[in-house]
C-alpha cells in the first residue's frame, strides 16, 4: 500500500479495482447486499464521493453545496429523456454539459475565497438552487412533485414505441434496471476511478496538493493557483453531475430534495469516513454508508426482538428499546454519532486506520530511520497511497 508508486502498481490497482467492482454481486451476496438496487447506489454514490474527493481531498476546499450538482445532473438527464428519448448516453452528455457549466459559474465566484467562506458560499449557492427549484423554476423542475417522464413527452428518438408500461431508460434495447443498470453504473465508476487515478498521479494533482498544504507559498512563488482549483472544482462538479444523471437513469425521476444541504453533508461524510485524499477511501465510505443505511433502516422492533431473543427477558426489553433508538427511523442518529466518532478519533478515515494497522505489523528496528521520515507527514503518506 505504501510501497513505491509505479505505472505498473497503478495498473495492477486499476485491474484489481475493476475486478472487485464487477464481481460485487458475488462477493457482497453473503452480507445481504448482493441485490441490484443497493449495488447501483454503491456505484453511483461511489462516483459522487470520488468526485468530491478530487476537490476536498486534493485541494482541501470543503464544499458544502456539492449536492446542487447532483440535482442539476438529475434534472438534465430527465430532460434529455423527455426530449430525446430514453437512451442514457445523451442523458449523460446533457448532464455533463449542464453540471460543468454550473460548476464553472459557481466555482468562479466561490473560489475567490477560501476556508470557511468558501464553504458558506457553496452552501449559499446550493440553497439558492434548492429554493429556486422548489418555487420559481417549477416549470422546469416540477417543484415538489419532482420531474418525471410522461408518455406524452416528445421523446424524439423513441416516441414511436407504443409500449404502455412504465418508462424505463434503455441502452439500445437493454433496460437500465436490475443488474444491467448496475453494470452501466459500474463501468462509469471504473472510468471515474481511472480518471481520478490519473489526476492523482499527474503534475496537476501535485499542484492541487500543493494548494492544500500551503496556498500562500504557492502565490509567493508567483503562481496563480485559481485556474488549478477551478479546474478541480469543475471536474468534481461534473462527477457529481454524472452521478446525478445515473440516479435518473436507474430511476427516471428527479426531485429538489436531492440538492438539499443534508445531501451535501452526506457526501462529505462519505469522503471523510473512507479517508479524504486517498483514491479508494471515498468509494469505501460511500459503500459503507449506503450499506448501513439500508441495513439499519430496515430494522424494526420485531426484528430486534428476534435478534436479541437469546437474552433473558428482562434484559431483552431494555436492550431492544435501547437499540431501537439507533435503527429504523433513528438511523440518522447512528449516522451523526458515526460522523462525530470518525472526525474525533480518525480524521484520516478508514484508510488511515488501515495504514496504522499495516504500520503496526511492519515495525522492525532496521526500518526505524525510514519510518521516522514517513511519520512526519501522515497526510502525504496517506495521499500517496
Amino acid at each position, binding site marked *: 500500500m505504501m510501497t513505491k508508486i509505479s505505472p505498473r502498481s497503478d495498473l495492477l490497482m486499476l485491474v484489481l479495482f475493476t475486478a472487485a467492482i464487477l464481481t460485487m454481486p458475488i462477493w457482497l451476496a453473503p452480507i445481504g447486499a448482493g441485490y441490484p438496487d443497493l449495488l447501483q447506489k454503491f456505484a453511483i454514490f461511489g462516483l459522487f464521493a470520488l468526485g468530491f474527493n478530487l476537490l476536498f481531498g486534493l485541494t482541501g476546499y470543503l464544499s458544502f453545496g456539492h449536492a446542487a450538482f447532483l440535482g442539476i445532473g438529475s434534472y438534465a438527464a430527465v430532460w434529455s429523456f423527455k426530449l430525446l428519448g430514453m437512451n442514457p448516453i445523451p442523458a449523460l452528455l446533457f448532464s455533463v454539459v449542464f453540471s460543468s457549466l454550473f460548476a464553472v459559474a459557481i466555482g468562479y*465566484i466561490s473560489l475567490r475565497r477560501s476556508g*470557511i467562506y468558501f464553504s*458558506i458560499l457553496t452552501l449559499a449557492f446550493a440553497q*439558492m438552487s434548492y429554493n429556486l427549484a422548489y*418555487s420559481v423554476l417549477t416549470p422546469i423542475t416540477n417543484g415538489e412533485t419532482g420531474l418525471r417522464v410522461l408518455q406524452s413527452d416528445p421523446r424524439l428518438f423513441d416516441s414511436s414505441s407504443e409500449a404502455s408500461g412504465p418508462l424505463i431508460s434503455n441502452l439500445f434495447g437493454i433496460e437500465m434496471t436490475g443488474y444491467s443498470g448496475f453494470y452501466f453504473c459500474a463501468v462509469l465508476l471504473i472510468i471515474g476511478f481511472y480518471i481520478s487515478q490519473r489526476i492523482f498521479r499527474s503534475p496537476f494533482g501535485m499542484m492541487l496538493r500543493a494548494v492544500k498544504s500551503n496556498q500562500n507559498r504557492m502565490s509567493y512563488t508567483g503562481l496563480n493557483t485559481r485556474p488549478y482549483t477551478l479546474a478541480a472544482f469543475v471536474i468534481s462538479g461534473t462527477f457529481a453531475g454524472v452521478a446525478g444523471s445515473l440516479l435518473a437513469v436507474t430511476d427516471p425521476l428527479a426531485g429538489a430534495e436531492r440538492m438539499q444541504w443534508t445531501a451535501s453533508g452526506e457526501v462529505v461524510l462519505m469522503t471523510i469516513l473512507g479517508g479524504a485524499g486517498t483514491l479508494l477511501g471515498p468509494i469505501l465510505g460511500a459503500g459503507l454508508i449506503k450499506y448501513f443505511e439500508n441495513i439499519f433502516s430496515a430494522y424494526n422492533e420485531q426484528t430486534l426482538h428476534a435478534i436479541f431473543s437469546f437474552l433473558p427477558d428482562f434484559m431483552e426489553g431494555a436492550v431492544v428499546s435501547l437499540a431501537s433508538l439507533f435503527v429504523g427511523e433513528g438511523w440518522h442518529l447512528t449516522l451523526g454519532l458515526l*460522523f462525530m466518532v470518525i*472526525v474525533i478519533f480518525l*480524521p484520516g478515515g478508514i484508510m488511515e486506520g488501515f495504514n496504522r494497522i499495516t504500520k503496526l505489523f511492519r515495525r522492525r528496528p532496521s526500518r526505524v530511520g525510514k519510518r521516522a521520515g514517513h511519520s512526519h507527514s501522515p497526510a502525504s503518506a496517506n495521499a500517496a497511497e
Partner: protein
Amino acid sequence: MDAIVLQILNGLDKGGAYALIALGLTLIFGTLGVVNFAHGALFMLGAFCAVAFNKLIGLEQVVVDPTKTTAWGTPLETRVPYIEVWLGDTGTTMLNYSVPLSIAFAIPVMLLVGYVMERGLIRHFYKRPHAEQILVTFGLAIVLQEIIKTYFGANPIPQSAPDMVRGAMDLGIWIGFDPGTVVYPQWRIVYLFFSLSVIGGVFAFLQFTTFGMVVRAGMADRETVGLLGINIERRFTLVFAVAAVVAGLAGVMYTPILPPDYHMGMDFLVLSFVVVVVGGMGSLPGAVSAGFLLGILQSFASMNEVKTILPGIDQIIIYLVAVIILLVRPRGLMGRKGVMET
C-alpha cells in the same frame, strides 16, 4: 408608505432571531476560534425547553365524578392540571404564561448544555482545522436533533403566547396612519423588545463587567492575557455557555411565532451563518446589525410588488446578498482587519 413600515416591522422579529443566533456564533468564533455548526441545534433545544416546560406544568390530574355521566354513559372524567389544583388561580396564570416562564427553565438547562458541550467536545477542537470543527459540530447537530425527534416526534408542536399579547395591535394609529393599515401581532413586538434587551444585556456584560473586559482582552490577544496569569480558557467556557443561553432564549421566545419541530435549528443555522459572514466574522455589532438588516431585506423581498418584478427573489435574497458582500467586501460589513480574512 404604510406597506413599507409593515414590511420593516415584519422583518424585525425574524431579524431579531437571526441577530441572537448570529451573536452567539460570533461570540464563540471570536473567543474560541471555533466554527460552531451546532448552534442552530442550540436554538432548537431552547425552543424545546419551552415545549418541555409547557408539558411539565400542564401535567393533568384526572378526577372521576361518579354522580355525572357523559353522553356515552361512562362516568364523567375531568382533567385538571395539577398546578391548578395546587395553586388555584396562580396556576392558571402560570399555564397561560408558560412560554415566558420557561425562560427561567431554559437558562439553567442551556447553561448546562453549553458547558458540557464545550468541556466535552469543543475543547478538543481548538487547534484542529476549521473543516474538522465544522464536521464534528455538524455531526453533533444531527445527533441533537435526532434525540429531540425521538422524544417529541417529528411534527411541529404549536405553543401559544399569553392571552394578553395574543392578538394583533393597530400600530398605525400611533404613528399617524389610517386605522387598520399597520396591524401587527403583539407577540412579535414582545419578541423584538426581548431580543433587543438580550442583545443589550450581552453587550453590557462584555462592556461593563470585569469579566467581560477580560473576555474582550482575550478576544483581542489570547496569548498575552494568558501570560498575565488569567485562566482565559475557563472564562471562554462560560462565554460558550452564555452563547448557548442566548441561542436557547431566542428559541424559547420564538415558539409562539413558529411551532418548533426538530429541524428548525438547521434552517436557522444556515441563514445565521450567512448573517455572520455578512456582518463580518468576529464582529459583534456587525452580527447584530446584519441580522436585522437581512431580516428586513427578506421581508421586503417577499412583498408581492417585488415578487412580480423578480420572481423567486424572496427565496434567495439572503444568499444573494451574502454572495455579493463576500465578493465586494470580503471582510463583511464590520469585520475587523486580520480576523479570518482569507
